């Protein structure tokens, strides 16, 4: 069984978000990029577990991005995986990302494609399902556990107001969230090995974006907290009703 794990690079969560060029560009000056947590802790680690248990033969990593995405995919390789593929395309439109991965993956015979439930920068949560459509595969989103037996996947996933266990024959695209695996820390051996693992650069296919970001803005700053006397909870309740209008 061949697994492909989709890895996106995102700003570290502690990043202070700022924009430049008249609020039209995300200002990356001084920003540290990390592997999208859902991709790292859940999708990648589960893929590695499946390989360690003998269920999978190959785990490859793919990212859509320009050369600046390479340090992050190398970091992902330090956790494990056989080879990394970087598709040399811009990654701002979710359709372009999915279509680029689909172009590459369609002739590679992957049985299972794992991605994160969403990337913490653009919060689309769209790539996995789009990719499934473009590869004509089934898709199960928000999975918290995944096992494979005899070419059939058993997946536990979130649904409206609960949880569901599904089965589906491979090939399949699954988006992963908490529960799927325990986070791992790369060790020295992994980091050394990652340096010599292949990182293939695939040229971008000709795919036009269907959306364009026009501008960014920051939410209005909180006007400051209103402190309430701990002995006057009646006042808090009244404010929640009359001022905040939430109860």
């Amino acid at each position: 069984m061949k697994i492909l794990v989709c890895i996106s690079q995102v700003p570290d969560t502690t990043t202070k978000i700022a924009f430049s060029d008249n609020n039209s560009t995300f200002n990356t000056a001084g920003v540290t990029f990390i592997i999208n947590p859902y991709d790292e802790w859940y999708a990648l680690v589960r893929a590695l577990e499946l390989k360690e248990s003998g269920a999978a033969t190959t785990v490859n990593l793919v990212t859509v991005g320009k050369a600046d995405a390479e340090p992050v995919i190398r970091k992902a390789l330090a956790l494990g995986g056989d080879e990394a593929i970087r598709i040399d395309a811009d990654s701002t439109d979710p359709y372009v990302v999915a279509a680029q991965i689909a172009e590459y993956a369609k002739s590679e015979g992957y049985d299972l494609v794992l991605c994160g439930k969403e990337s913490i920068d653009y919060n689309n949560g769209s790539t996995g399902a789009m990719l499934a459509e473009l590869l004509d595969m089934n898709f199960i989103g928000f999975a918290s556990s995944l096992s494979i037996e005899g070419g059939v996947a058993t997946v536990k996933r979130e649904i409206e107001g609960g949880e569901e266990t599904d089965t589906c024959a491979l090939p399949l695209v699954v988006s992963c969230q908490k529960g799927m695996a325990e986070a791992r820390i790369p060790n020295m051996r992994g980091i050394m090995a990652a340096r010599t693992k292949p990182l293939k650069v695939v040229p971008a296919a000709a795919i036009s974006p269907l959306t364009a970001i026009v501008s960014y803005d920051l939410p209005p700053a909180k006007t400051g907290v209103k402190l309430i006397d701990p002995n006057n909870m009646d006042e808090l309740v009244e404010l929640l009703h009359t001022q905040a209008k939430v109860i």
Partner: protein
Amino acid sequence: MSVIVLAEHQQGSFKKKSFEAIQYAAGIAQAMGTSVTAVVLGNAGDSEMQQLGQYGATKVLHVADARLDNLNARAYTKALVAAAEKEGAKVVVGLHDVTGKAVFPRVAARLKAGMVAGAVAQPDTASGFVVKKTVFSGKAFASVNITSDVKVVTLMPNTFAVKKGEGSTAVEKLEVAFEDKDFAVQVKEVSKVTGTVPLAEAELVVSGGRGMKGPENWHILEDLAKELGAATACSRPVADSHWRPHHEHVGQTGGTIRPNLYIAAGISGAIQHLAGVNGSKTIVVINKDPEAPFFKAADYGVVGDVLEVLPKLTEAVKKWKASHN
């Protein structure tokens, strides 16, 4: 060239967020000088579907195949695409929830439509079709222009208040030629959270951190949640220490929620925690440390011991409810 919208339901009953989606679609239709067709999948009764007219759907296309009672991304996609084609839809609207996230990216890819996931404002059609959405986990907004001919937008639930109107709707059956492969994902077991309010959809949430001291104190927090009709949540260390189940943990590695009210009791307000909750409309923080970072993100703050403040707040809610009934 109408606007179509998926009206999600559970066993035939429509939720508030479905009305919200229809109302949102009606706003778009009005700006474009057209009308709204709602799509209903699976078993639903006529009188329930009639309600959809009150929020702006002038027509309902009902795909009454019972296999659609469970979410199935492929089959839902086929039905929505069939509806879009029948109506010549230029805009397809859904919700940014677990159903919408499985279905609409597929619909968008099939229609080669640009998509904005998680819209928080009505599209601006003055020049182009510009939709505002949250990015960086609530730390900013992006305005995104959809440049393709057909457009897909999913609305962040709880963005707008719903207003019930007078309209009526015409229900029409739509037959879709499903194949076996559309139902290749098979449901083996469903477990719904019953009794309590599911966290992801809750409008009010009471959440506890390490400041709660231990699982034995959680009934204090649950009392407040019960009084408010709120869901309960927690910080990550609380789930890691098994004080609370992991599905309650919110933040960067847990769930992302956007309730109207988030009450944080004994939570310090680390950035990874905030990432999951700072989309909340109103935040109340209870912490004994006046320097706790969470106060910076709060609308209302109470400096005090949670174990004392929470019962007082519960009492105050009780009293207030009694005087407002």
